[in-house]
């Protein structure tokens, strides 16, 4: 009786682990897509409406998907507090808090750090150019991430389950 329960437990745990890893592969493209649309929202605010950055970030935080809105909300809070920090500092602080809890890779982080360097610091044309470039780079990362996800999601799902089964078989 205990043996069966134990075996089930092992299988479920290993399966869940596999799903978790698979999930992380699926999450990254999702997050990258959300970031792309958030950045193009920001571009619209900046280029067409010339909304001041603090307000623009707030707007983007409100309208973007929940997995990335935290980044923009933090950057907005950092700027709005008027503690004398620059847009770049506020953005980097927000990134530092956001990155560890995200599914992004160092490559993706580098693109976002690049955004911080120019944020608000030039005229509209220039802002548009840089934001579009960042979007483009995120798009290529996304293509790669999706390809990777396709390969790995199924693999890890089954891998977890079968590893669980294998362990059970060995122990029995």
């Amino acid at each position, binding site marked *: 009786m205990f043996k069966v329960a134990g075996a089930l437990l092992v299988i479920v745990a290993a399966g869940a682990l596999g799903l978790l890893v698979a999930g992380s592969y699926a999450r990254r493209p999702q997050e990258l897509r959300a970031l792309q649309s958030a950045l193009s929202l920001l571009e619209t605010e*900046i280029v067409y409406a010339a909304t001041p950055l*603090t307000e*623009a970030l707030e707007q983007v935080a409100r309208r973007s998907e929940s997995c990335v809105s935290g980044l923009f909300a933090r950057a907005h809070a950092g700027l709005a507090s008027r503690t004398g920090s620059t847009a770049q500092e506020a953005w980097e602080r927000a990134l530092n808090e956001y990155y560890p809890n995200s599914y992004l890779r160092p490559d993706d982080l580098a693109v976002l750090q690049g955004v911080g360097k120019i944020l608000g610091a030039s*005229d*509209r044309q*220039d802002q548009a150019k840089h934001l579009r470039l960042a979007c483009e780079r995120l798009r290529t990362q996304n293509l790669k991430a999706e390809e990777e996800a396709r390969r790995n999601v199924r693999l890890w799902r089954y891998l977890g389950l079968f590893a669980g089964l294998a362990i059970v078989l060995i122990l029995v």
Partner: protein
Amino acid sequence: MVYMGQLTEVRPGHRLREEVIGFFPTTIRALLGQLPASAWSVLEEVRLRVHKPLILSRAGGETMLTGEGLPTGDPGRAYRVSEEDVVRTVELVTGSSLYAVEDELRQGFVTVPGGHRVGLCGRAVVEGGRVRTLKYLTGVNFRISREVQGVADQVLPWLIRGPRTMYNTLIISPPRCGKTTLLRDLVRQISNGVPRLGFTGLTVGVVDERSEIAGCYRGIPQRDVGLRTDVLDGCPKAEGMMLLLRALSPDVIATDEIGRREDVEALEEMLNAGVRIVATAHAASVEELGSRPVLRDLLQRHIVERFVVLEYRHGPGAVRRIIDGRNFETVEAIQCSR
């Protein structure tokens, strides 16, 4: 001497300090924060230039600050402004949004919440012979805008014609004499009405091209400009006057610093529509005004009925002269010891 009204500074030194130091980076904030409230209440400008001493100017003089925030006259001991200081100040005054102040930057300054004007200097980026924007900003002049209620008290009796009408008025003075301060108080009193003079309030339309009169932030006046005042913020003057005339049927239109041909043409348009005008112009005297081709027209056609001339003697708005627009004779000279 005429009746001296009660002058009230709407924001005393300590409140001004809180409001203004937020626009400076922490290094400079630490220095400015140590100035006593009394110093703040006379402070007019804070000037930052890369690698040069930090200079504060007030009515009739200037001072530098040491690294400890103490006043000094010796440039050798004064705190030197770093490149970083200027870059950060620019970030703070533009709200980290250079792109949002492009149009203002083209004119060389931006207006910040609270109505203060910040002049910026650097390298101009020219496109097709016109300044597109400024880059490599190296100089900042933070001009503190004050709101003093009651400055118009002495001149008002000369500008009011009856209970519901007034003279077309032009305030002229060199820079830093309190032109805008006087205009703002005039607008407030014309709009609210002056029971003391039996003057009921008129609807005033303000075209505030540089957000200096009403100090609008997101369109809401941060200054008291009266209860019957509509402010068109950030709009070019000539176009703004026409827009106000069509849309809001004002009795009086007020605007700052006229000088371009289209401004004068718009003013004439206002007169034809029976709207009264209150405006300001840069000039030291009426004669000087006459030497500027565009404004000469205003004089020759006797459009302006009253000139208020401000002179800088002991401080802003110290001496005022009211001149009749038909015969250019001084109607009244007001000495005020502020």
